[in-house]
């Protein structure tokens, strides 16, 4: 199977937890959802950051593929290509 390289950019508390720019090597045909799973794997409480208990992506998580917004409900159907950039961040809330 061919692999694709995806560059991720994480911000705010996601950056604290996962790092700022995590390079991912994914199977060809990988989706935004599989990229999130790959990010979460091996990081303590990684899944909890992105996913609800039922496995759906937390609705407030902002996902942008090459600068275009991806709805959390579309993440499983949105394929990534080699060289794509995926930004993942939560809304910062304090004032």
């Amino acid at each position: 199977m061919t692999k694709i390289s995806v560059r991720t950019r994480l911000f705010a508390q996601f950056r604290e937890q996962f790092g700022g720019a995590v390079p991912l090597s994914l199977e060809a045909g990988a989706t935004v959802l599989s990229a999130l799973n790959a990010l979460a794997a091996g990081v303590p409480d990684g899944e909890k950051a992105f996913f609800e208990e039922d496995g759906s992506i937390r609705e407030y998580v902002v996902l942008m593929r090459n600068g275009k917004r991806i709805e959390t409900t579309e993440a499983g159907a949105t394929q990534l290509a080699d060289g794509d950039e995926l930004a993942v961040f939560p809304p910062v809330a304090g004032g």
Partner: protein
Amino acid sequence: MLTEREKKRYARQILLFGEEAQEKLKQAEVFLAGAGGLGSPVAIYLAVAGIGTIAIADNDTIELTNLNRQILHRDRDCGRKKVASAEENLREINPDIEIRAVDATIGDGNAEELVGNADVIVDAMDNYAARFLLNRAAFRKNIPLVHAAIRGLHGQATTVIPGKTPCLSCIFPHAPPGEVLPVLGATAGVLASIQATEVVKYLTGTGELLAGRLLLWDGRTSRAEEIAVERNPKCPVCGGNGPGA
């Protein structure tokens, strides 16, 4: 017209923007939502810049745990209403401007009324429920909204121009869950300084606004990055209508 005293007080800004721009600041009214971590430095910088009228809205009371970041309030102010302390301290900082203390919670029924005829709205709130109401009021009344938010050493900011840029609900359609946020006062200072700069730039027509761009500040590495943001055609606030609708 600027008085001789004002010309002196704002001399270093007049060097930067000119007297006409300083006059625009004097004629301007800013609605500042929140007198907390962001609201404190925003209020101080807008007051010293000579914004003619600052309406500052908050419904909270000052607690000791606020004082690591809410620099408009003093130790002696614990237990007082934030707007009362804000009004008093801002008058001491600059007696040549009008301060309007608005002791109110921004709610579903009153956001547009509270905002009034402000030229700019500053979002210095600490929760998205209030931010969304403010964002909707800004869109309906066609008033620019300068947003920022902070957590820990991180922050974000953007300037919303109704009908031209994405609104806050385009960028963040869903609120994150509430939590007791860790935060350093200086983080509020960084983001609040950006907000105050945006307000002065907008009112004086200076430079390029943080419009259509989300600035993301990481104080841990002292890096600012930005992400281009787009309008959401399905946005429940600004998707279907023009501003002022």
